[in-house]
């Protein structure tokens, strides 16, 4: 039996281009199981919300052209929702869907989930691609509850490179 590695806190968020955000993490589980836990509402309800932001809506119609909608109850902001349409489904390695943050209904992103399994470890990557500059810019202001939308490109790098000067 393999030793279980503690992977808590190991998610990495990077901003590979002006319009993208990439979230990556490894899991000690087969891709098929991860795909199921990512796409079956009975599973999603158990992990997607937060302890103080319970999930109150979790609808998933897992077909190409089918829709999904998640709503969490935020203690201050009230109900916060996201929805989209599934574009490509290649179980268990790939899922492409659109995503609209309902606080910013004009800004739709395209999200690519890939699950690559190797020796019992599955690397998950979620790549969020914005459609237009306008949407991207709008999402900068929509705050963390905008979920997967961020477009700060190189600012993080620049800041890192300037920390020495500033401190």
């Amino acid at each position, binding site marked *: 039996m393999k030793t279980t590695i503690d992977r808590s806190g190991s998610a990495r968020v990077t901003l590979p281009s002006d319009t993208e955000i990439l*979230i990556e993490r490894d899991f000690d589980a087969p891709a098929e199981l991860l795909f199921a836990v990512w796409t079956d509402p009975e599973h999603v309800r158990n*992990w997607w919300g937060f302890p103080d932001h319970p999930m109150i809506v979790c609808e998933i119609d897992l077909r190409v052209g089918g829709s999904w909608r998640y709503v969490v109850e935020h203690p201050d902001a009230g109900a916060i929702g996201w929805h989209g349409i599934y574009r490509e489904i290649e179980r268990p390695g790939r899922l492409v869907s659109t995503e609209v943050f309902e606080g910013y209904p004009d800004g739709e992103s395209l999200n690519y989930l890939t699950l690559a399994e190797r020796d019992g470890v599955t690397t998950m990557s979620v790549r969020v691609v914005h459609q237009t500059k306008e949407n991207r*810019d709008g999402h900068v*202001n929509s705050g*963390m509850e905008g979920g997967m939308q961020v477009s700060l490109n190189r*600012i*993080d790098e620049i*800041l890192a490179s*300037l920390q020495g*000067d500033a401190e």
Partner: protein
Amino acid sequence: MARAATTTDAFNAVAEPRRRLIVELLGEGERSVNEIVDAMSAPQPQVSKHLKVLKEVGVVSSRKDGRQRLYRLDANALRPIHDWVSEFEAMWSDRLDRLDTYLDEVKRKEQP
């Protein structure tokens, strides 16, 4: 086009693509207005307007050097944005940690 509060904080100031270009350019070092105008191929009045907004929120500062004015980036004003990215990462990290914990539960149920 109505765009409220572009000058209230660093977030809004850098949400504008041309201003973000200026931030990226100044990330490489101090530049004069003329150098910024050349690098962006944008008309000077427009560049000056963007620089004014960035200056108001403290993202850039300027100094006089002879007849020209030099602009530089102030990293501390970008800190809220850096913190925001860190928070975003923490949010996803927590969410995926909970997914991981939940996966363990599912695996245990499948293999009694």
